């Protein structure tokens, strides 16, 4: 090292020094005290993956404006979206959420069991905490080359299904109910047979409905089982090349809005309660319809001109989520179908 003169060794540090200096200046720039505005108050919203676009782009910005008009205070909604099970686990682990939108009631029940919210608190909201619905549908490749019309066609040999993972994805748990419920008119044995047939052909499992869609979009598989709303917004935007196939009997998914009690200060709780109420207002419901959801007010759905699905059922038809989770997701799917398929 002594051979390198000090001048030479100093010159060698100019380039990395300049690079690091530039990176530091760039990184610090927004935090330098150049502008005088106080940072806005934040409200943290966690949601299941498919709700991301509607909330980030439409619902929450609209709420920020309403809040400012009503209180004069600048509010910024900070969000995190992932699979419903993942979101639920994160909130149980203590992320600072004030409001959660989970894909299905068992996740809300888990939040209550962990003391995050009062048991059943979401049922005190309008419509039992359901602000929007969307059916589970099938997305096939353009022209439907496999001729898929209903869940029964998914059980045909050689069909490769892209399916989210029911352990982390709410949409996937709903899809299991749809696959079982579609066969239920022929009896419980036939329903389980259909579920087994479908799962025999599941070629890829992703952690969330969103991730499953990304796999399908990258040309994997013949058919994607997902939310109508998620498929609609992607096809409209030209990101997903495919066609929606409506099964005759499918399930209406009903995400739940949950106001978090644990670790939320009183001012945030007021804002979270206001946001929850805001979701059922007519303008918000229209925004949700624009983003592919079906409103809880039937008259607002006319504008979207989506198929009526007279044979679609709600989870109540299966005896409610408590029974559906116990007998269909846990007993039939996890304890019988998966082991039989060797998974």
């Amino acid at each position, binding site marked *: *090292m*002594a*051979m*390198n003169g000090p001048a030479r060794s100093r010159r*060698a*540090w100019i*380039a*990395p020094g300049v*690079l690091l200096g530039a*990176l*530091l200046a*760039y*990184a*610090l*720039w*927004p935090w330098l005290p150049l502008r005088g505005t106080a940072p806005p108050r*934040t409200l*943290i919203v966690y949601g299941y*993956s498919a709700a*991301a676009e509607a909330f980030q782009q439409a619902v929450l910005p609209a709420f920020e404006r309403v809040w400012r008009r009503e209180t004069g205070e600048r509010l910024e909604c*900070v*969000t*995190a*979206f*992932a699979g419903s099970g993942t979101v639920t686990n*994160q909130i*149980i*682990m*203590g*992320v*600072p959420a004030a409001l959660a939108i989970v894909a299905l009631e068992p996740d809300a029940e888990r939040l209550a069991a962990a003391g995050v919210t009062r048991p059943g608190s979401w049922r005190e909201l309008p419509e039992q905490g359901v602000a929007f619905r969307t059916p589970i549908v099938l997305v096939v490749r353009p022209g439907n080359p496999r001729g898929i019309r209903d869940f029964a066609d998914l059980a045909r040999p050689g069909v490769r299904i892209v399916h989210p993972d029911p352990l982390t994805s709410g949409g996937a748990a709903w899809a299991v109910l749809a696959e079982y419920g579609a066969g239920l008119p022929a009896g419980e044995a036939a329903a389980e047979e259909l579920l087994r047939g479908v799962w025999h052909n599941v070629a890829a499992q992703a*952690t*969330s409905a*969103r*991730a499953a*869609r*990304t796999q399908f*979009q990258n040309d994997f598989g013949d058919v994607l089982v997902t939310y109508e709303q998620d498929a609609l917004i*992607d096809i409209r935007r030209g*990101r997903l090349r495919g066609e929606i196939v409506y099964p005759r009997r499918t399930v209406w998914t009903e995400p739940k809005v949950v106001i978090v009690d644990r*670790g939320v200060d009183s001012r945030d709780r007021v804002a979270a309660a206001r946001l929850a109420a805001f979701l059922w207002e007519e303008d918000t419901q229209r925004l949700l319809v624009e983003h592919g959801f079906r409103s809880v007010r039937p008259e607002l759905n006319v504008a979207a001109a989506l198929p009526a699905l007279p044979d679609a059922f709600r989870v109540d038809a299966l005896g409610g989520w408590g029974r559906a989770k116990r007998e269909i997701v846990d007993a039939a799917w996890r304890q019988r179908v998966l082991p039989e398929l060797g998974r």
Partner: protein
Amino acid sequence: MSDSRGSGAVGRRSGRWPVGLLVLVLLPIILMPLGAIAVFALRGGLAGFVSALLTADAQFALRFSLLVAFATATINAVLGTFAAYVLSKHRFRGERVLGIAVNLPVAIPTVVVGTSLLLLWGPIGLLGRWLVPLGLEPMFTPFGVLLAHLFVTFPYMLGAIKPLLDELETTYEEAAYTMGATRWQTFRHVLLPALRGGLWSGTLLTFAHSLGEFGATVMVSGNLRLRTQTAPLYIFAQFEAGNLESANAVAAVLALVSFLIFFFLLRLTERRGGARSE
């Protein structure tokens, strides 16, 4: 880049085919995937690339990652040098155990690091349970991300400094000592100049690792956009959401910055290697 100049290595052959074979093996494993990022990042044209980079989320993620990397590199440069000094210059009971403990983060999966931090500092964790009611909540904040990065990158500084200290003859120190220099003066004027190259390479290595850290960060950050979402988390979230352009633009920038850092790192080690054999 250093091998062609042959800094005094013995028995080097000029055979072509092993080199060709190595390149052939490296192509699908390393080189082609990196090329794919560049190709996809620029597929939507330069305008698309720039606009994907300029969204508030992407800008925040990049800046946040850089700040965390700077903080991690600075803190671990000091802590790592101190650890290397203690382990190299002091003989004590439990030295081996401590030596293994400080190197442990290399061997532990980063997801496990994240989990362990949550189970200690998180709201349901051993210490967090008592701290959170006091309003001290390190997890799911930028501070939690910093803690995770300090943990994961701790051994890199140590690895860069300790071999240099071990090699350094104690006679210089003893000489300084007998001439009446204090322990700090000895360190400042005798040890530090000898360590300069190692300090830089250790710091850069720590910086680069922090910039790309994913496993531990995803556990402790809560993945809040515009709050705790680092660039790697942003890339993953955008990829999962199907926004390949956004994911790729940030991935390309991250790859470029890491490449530059690595480039300087290589030049540095090359110079040191050359100096030693001169």
